[in-house]
C-alpha cells in the first residue's frame, strides 16, 4: 500500500515539475518571439524607406547604375530571408550597400544639399539605431531562453518537450563594440 502511495506521490511531483517548467519555458519563448517582431517592425520600416531614397539619388546621379542594382539586390535578399540568421546577413548586406550609396552622394553636392535627401538620411540613421536597440533586446531574451533550456534539470524536460535553441541576431563584425559591465 505504502509503495503504491509513494509511486503516486513521485508521479505527481514529476507531473507538477513538468507543468511548471513548461510554463516558464513558454513565457521565455514568447518573449523571444515578441522581441523578434520588434526587430521585424524596424527592418520593415527601413525596407520601405529604400525605394524613396533610391529615387531621390537617381534624380541627381543617374549614372551610378551598379550601386542601384546592388541596393535592389540586397533589398530582394531581405524579402527572401526568413530565419533570424538569414535576416541578419541580409540586413548586414543592405547596410553595406547603403553605406556605399551614401558615399557616392558625397560626390554630388546638389544631392547632399537637397532637403528630401537629408530627411531620408536622418530617417535611415534613426531606423538603424532602432534596429540596433531592438537587436539588443531580442538577443537578451534569446540568451535568457537558451540559458534556461540548457540548465539542469530543466534541460531534461526541455529535451522531452522538444524546446529548441533560438538563433541570435548577429551584428556585422565591423559594427560590433565590446563593452564590459561590472556590477
Amino acid at each position, binding site marked *: 500500500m505504502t509503495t503504491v502511495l509513494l509511486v503516486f506521490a513521485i508521479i505527481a511531483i514529476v507531473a507538477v515539475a513538468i507543468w511548471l517548467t513548461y510554463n516558464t519555458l513558454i513565457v521565455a519563448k514568447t518573449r523571444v518571439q515578441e*522581441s523578434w517582431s*520588434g526587430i521585424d517592425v*524596424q527592418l520593415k520600416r527601413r525596407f520601405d524607406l529604400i525605394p524613396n531614397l533610391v529615387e531621390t539619388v537617381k534624380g541627381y546621379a543617374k549614372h551610378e547604375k551598379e550601386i542601384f542594382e546592388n541596393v535592389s539586390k540586397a533589398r530582394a535578399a531581405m524579402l527572401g530571408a526568413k530565419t533570424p540568421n538569414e535576416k541578419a546577413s541580409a540586413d548586414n548586406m543592405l547596410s553595406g550597400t547603403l553605406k556605399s550609396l551614401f558615399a557616392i552622394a558625397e560626390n554630388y553636392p546638389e544631392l547632399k544639399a537637397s532637403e528630401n535627401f537629408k530627411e531620408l538620411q536622418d530617417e535611415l540613421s*534613426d531606423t538603424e*539605431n*532602432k534596429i540596433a*536597440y*531592438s537587436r*539588443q*533586446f531580442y538577443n*537578451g*531574451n534569446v540568451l535568457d531562453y537558451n540559458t534556461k533550456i540548457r540548465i539542469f534539470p530543466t534541460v531534461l524536460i526541455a529535451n522531452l518537450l522538444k524546446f529548441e535553441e533560438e538563433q541570435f541576431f548577429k551584428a556585422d563584425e565591423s559594427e560590433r*563594440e565590446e*563593452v*564590459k*559591465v*561590472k*556590477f
Partner: protein
Amino acid sequence: MTPYNQIDSNKRKTWAVMFLFVVLVTLIGYIFGQISGYGNSFVVFALVFSTFSSVSSYYFSDSLVLAISGAKKVDKSVSPQIYRAVENLCIGAGISIPQIYLIEDTAINAFATGRDPKHAAVVFTTGCLTRLEDEELEGVAAHELSHIKNFDSRLMVIVVILVGSVTLLADFMARSFMFRGRSRDDNKANGIIMLIGLLLIILSPLIAILIQLAISRNREHLADASGALLTRYPQGLANALEKIAADKELLEVANKATAHLYISNPLKNQKDSVSWFANLFNTHPPIGDRIARLRSM
C-alpha cells in the same frame, strides 16, 4: 543585487512604507487625541487622513511632483532629439515609451517618476538639451529609464509625498499645541513644548528611515550600471556626470523633498542646507565615485 531582486524589493518596500505610514500617523493621532482631550475622534481623523494620502499618493504623486517641478509635457514635434533618444532606449529595454517632460532651466538635471513602466514620465531640464552631447543625453535618459524599469521611481515618488504629509501633520499639531498653550497657564505650556519635542523625536527617525529606504546609494549605482548596459557606452553617462559636477548652477524648482528624485543633487548642498535635516537628503553617492565606476566598466 540584480535588477530582478531590485524590482521585488522595491515593490515590497512600497507597501511597507504605505502601511507603516498609516500605522504611525494613526498612532500619533491617538496620542495626540489623548493628550489634547479631543479623544478618539482624532484617531478616526488620523486614520482617514493617512489612508487617503497613502492611496492617493500611489496614484497621483507623479502628477503632483511634475506640477511642483513646473514640468511641461513635450512630444516628438517639439523636441525630436530627446524623443528619439528615449524611444530608442525603450526599444532596447523592452518597455513602453514614458511621457517626456521638460523643465525650463539651464541647469543640467533629470528625474523619472511614475508607479510602473506603463504610467511613467521622464523629466529633463532644457539645460540637458542645450549643453549635453547626444551620447551624454542618451546616458542620462538610460539612467532614468532604469529607475522606471526597476520600479525605483514608484517607491521614490511615494516617499516624497508621504514624507511631505508627515511634515505637514507634525507642523499642524505643533501649531495647534501652541495655540491651545497660550490660553493655559505657563506650567502646562512648558509641558506642551516638551511634548512637541517628543513628537519630533518620534517623527524624525521615521522620516530618516523612509528616505533611506527610498534612496539607498546602491539604487543610484545600479541605475548607472543598468543604464550603461542599455546604451553599451558607459562613457556617455560618465561624461554627462562630469559636466553636471562642474556645473555650479542650482535648479530653482527643486526643493528638499524632491531633491532625491534627481539624477544628481539639484541643491548642490549650498551652505544653508547643511543642517542635520538636509543631511538626511544627502542621498546621492559622491559623483566622483559614480564617474570612477562608470569609467572602469
